[in-house]
């Protein structure tokens, strides 16, 4: 049977992708950002997953004004990096895992989550920047990501967006689905987006480290409390785009419960300001 071996959380700031793609990772502005992920990269090399369910939001790339799915699962064979206006990122095509994705969809839809099935979409920085941060840039002689990825897109762009409670519950249903998959796979679930940032109007540039740290604490030890945060608090305290943090709750819901009832082990935690307009946060939790 497959199992969730760990969950990973990270911001997915597009400027990070640009810095990597344009060879600016060693500059003083960016070096501390990448240094903050080094320990996680080493940890990933030690126990590489067989597949990742990557929770992200599409940024008006695959889903535009015509159609907005609340939750969409990628059941396709592969996903090309999108041209978001600057040209496509020069990173590998993302290989899917259609069998596991179809199994998760089957299980989760029968558990009353009304997923949209997506066989074809281009994936934007929301999905590819986390891969770059945690795997580094794949070398030219072996130009591929280390494992298949199942994209799980959450609408955090057009209101109404799903509640934190709903996101946590979806994560739990995904864990149940993974644990009923016939093949023995080591699966990780990643939650991306956030932390505090506002990308609009005269309040742009808002950063709230107190909120961000409290969120990482609550997410780790009392996820139900984090899930109870209303949308308006995210927007007020963490900025209009801070609402992306609800996606961390999907990954948190997918964490296996420990037999002793304790919180999961925090393998890594990193926080840095600024990355472009955004506070950057990163967690690795293992059972």
């Amino acid at each position: 049977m497959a199992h969730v071996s760990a969950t990973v959380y990270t911001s997915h700031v597009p400027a990070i992708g640009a810095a990597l793609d344009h060879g600016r990772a060693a500059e003083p502005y960016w070096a501390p950002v990448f240094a903050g992920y080094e320990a996680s990269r080493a940890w990933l090399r030690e126990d590489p997953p067989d597949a990742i369910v990557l929770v992200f939001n599409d940024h008006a790339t695959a889903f535009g004004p015509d159609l907005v799915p609340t939750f969409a699962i990628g059941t396709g064979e592969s996903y090309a990096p999108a041209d978001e206006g600057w040209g496509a990122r020069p990173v590998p095509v993302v290989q899917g895992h259609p069998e596991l994705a179809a199994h998760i969809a089957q299980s989760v839809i029968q558990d009353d989550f009304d997923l949209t099935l997506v066989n074809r979409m281009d994936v934007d920085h929301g999905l590819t920047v986390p891969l770059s941060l945690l795997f580094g840039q794949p070398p030219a002689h072996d130009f591929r990501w280390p494992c298949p990825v199942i994209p799980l897109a959450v609408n955090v762009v057009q209101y109404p967006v799903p509640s934190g409670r709903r996101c946590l519950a979806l994560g739990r249903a995904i864990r149940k689905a993974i644990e009923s998959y016939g093949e023995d796979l080591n699966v990780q679930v990643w939650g991306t987006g956030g932390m505090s940032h506002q990308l609009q109007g005269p309040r742009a540039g808002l950063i709230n480290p107190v909120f961000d740290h409290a969120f990482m604490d609550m997410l780790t030890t009392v996820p139900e409390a984090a899930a109870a945060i209303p949308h308006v608090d995210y927007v007020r305290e963490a900025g209009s785009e801070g609402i992306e943090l609800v996606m961390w709750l999907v990954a948190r819901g997918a964490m296996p419960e420990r037999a002793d009832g304790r919180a999961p082990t925090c393998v890594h935690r990193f926080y840095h300001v600024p990355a472009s307009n955004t506070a950057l946060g990163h967690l690795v939790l293992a059972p």
Partner: protein
Amino acid sequence: MSNADFADIPGTVLFDAQQARRGYGLNQFCMSLMNADNRKRFKADEVAYLADWPMSDEQRQAVLDRDMNRCLALGGNVYFLVKIAATDGISVQQMVGRMTGMDEADYRDMMLRGGRPIEGNRYRHEWLQRSGG
């Protein structure tokens, strides 16, 4: 909760169904810029290119002026609008900084010093007090 609860957050437009309807053509236009040929055509003749989309004249002018706050008020959303910045070859930080009315270097410095603080930026009345209103 209703969307009215968001109304006392300063400097923030909630992109809901009403805004999405208002901005439908504007956001469609923005998405068209995800194609290199379209970006070239737009840059060659912005007025002609904009004429092809079901937008209001106000929306077209806001795009021509690169007045992103006006675009937001008229139904745009930043994830759509950022495709204009991409076409102009400016960074997300430059685009976002311009929406604050700050000088580019000042905005960058503010971010390097830890960003805009949350204190005094939670409620509209805090802004009104500061402006003496």
